[in-house]
């Protein structure tokens, strides 16, 4: 079972992040034992975000595997001064998942996804599946501090992988408003979670 640790506010690079960063450093030198530890720490979150964005479990697993191999291969490119190792890995995972879902979009029925979204609130749904832990509670609390429209915009973009233009259409909202909401929402989350330097 994957264990997430609590992240005290005001610490952009908590202990586990430092440890992961050092492990990535060893991966870059070809240390397979280090990668196994990276895998054990990050396979759960990587598969989680891939599943959330892509929805299809088999596709999500493909994406997650590709991401983890990519992490190994590009481990020398991680720059500790630009953020935590976990953040770096999750950024790769999210981008890959979004790329995948946009590619699938050409042949699959986007409308179906939109329809399903209505009875499947991303972050509640996600929260149900996740082991109770302090970080999840923090994220939930921070999401709750957003306005409904900010939360919805951020969730559609991040958890569902829609472009901000698509978000604007889904919410029948002008583009400029959506951009503002995404920014205000994310900045509020950042401050709430204590990310920053």
């Amino acid at each position: 079972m994957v264990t997430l640790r609590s992240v005290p506010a005001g610490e952009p690079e908590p202990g586990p992040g430092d440890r992961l960063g050092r492990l990535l450093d060893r991966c870059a030198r070809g240390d397979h034992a280090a990668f196994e530890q990276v895998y054990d720490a990050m396979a759960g979150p990587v598969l989680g975000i891939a599943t959330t964005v892509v929805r299809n479990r088999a596709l999500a697993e493909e994406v997650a595997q590709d991401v983890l191999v990519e992490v190994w291969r590009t481990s020398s490119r991680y720059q500790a001064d630009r953020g935590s190792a976990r953040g770096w890995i999750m950024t790769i995972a999210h981008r890959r998942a979004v790329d995948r879902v946009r590619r699938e979009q050409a042949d699959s029925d986007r409308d179906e996804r939109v329809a399903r979204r209505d009875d499947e609130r991303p972050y509640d749904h996600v929260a149900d599946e996740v082991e109770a832990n302090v970080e999840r509670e923090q994220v939930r609390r921070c999401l709750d501090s957003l306005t409904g429209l900010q939360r919805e915009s951020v969730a559609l973009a991040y958890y569902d992988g829609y472009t901000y233009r698509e978000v604007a259409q889904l919410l029948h909202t002008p583009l400029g408003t959506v951009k503002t909401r995404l920014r205000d929402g994310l900045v509020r989350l950042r401050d709430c979670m204590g990310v920053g330097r």
Partner: protein
Amino acid sequence: MSRPADAGIHTLAAPYALHALPEDEARRFEAHLERCADCRVEVDELRETAARLGAVTAVAPPRRMREEVLARVAEVRPLPPRTAGGPAPVLRRWWPRVATGLVAALVAGIVVLGIRLDDVQDDLDRSQQVGAQMRQLVEADDMQMIRVGEDGASRGTVLVARSLDVAVFIGDGMAPAPEGHTYQLWLMHEDGPVVSAGVLGNPPDGHVGPVTARGLAGVDRMGITVEPDGGSPQPTSDPVMMIDLPA
């Protein structure tokens, strides 16, 4: 602080960090990031924030997945670190988005053919001749990359786009040809004829190209042979490298 012209683009940091920009806008924003240090900090922080949103979605992966990933990793060598004075700035500007697009278009091919995007980028980095033509090639919808000799001393990379009728060859780690000899690149037609695509020389550092070849109709392979200086009208020796081109 920011000029009015830039005011609009600053608001894209959040959608960019969320991967919520369409390709063309992501590209423009990346160009902006190059010269906006504040924006880079903001993007880093917002990405870190988004990562927290992602981390709470964690699920327990199947045991089988661990074995599969470790088996794949066992066959992959991590990329070398970037070294100082590395990639040309012009490359930096366009590569990230190109890579994203390529990932979207070619994930399957990458896995099957063992193509390593970043390795190719490294090859491109080393070459100082990346220009508009290369950019056009790399952005072509049907662009494919083929790598050969991954395990040997000499490695070849071909970027080919049939829609543009262009293939570009980059060679690395080529052993010096015997004195008075040169490498030569050939286009081999499926029905037999072999046409020279140019003399590659005998570079002391073993690095060749990028060399552009045109006229790919009916060509299914590229080959490299050692020829007497100045090249030959037809190959006179067995190829030292053969590259199958995709149809």
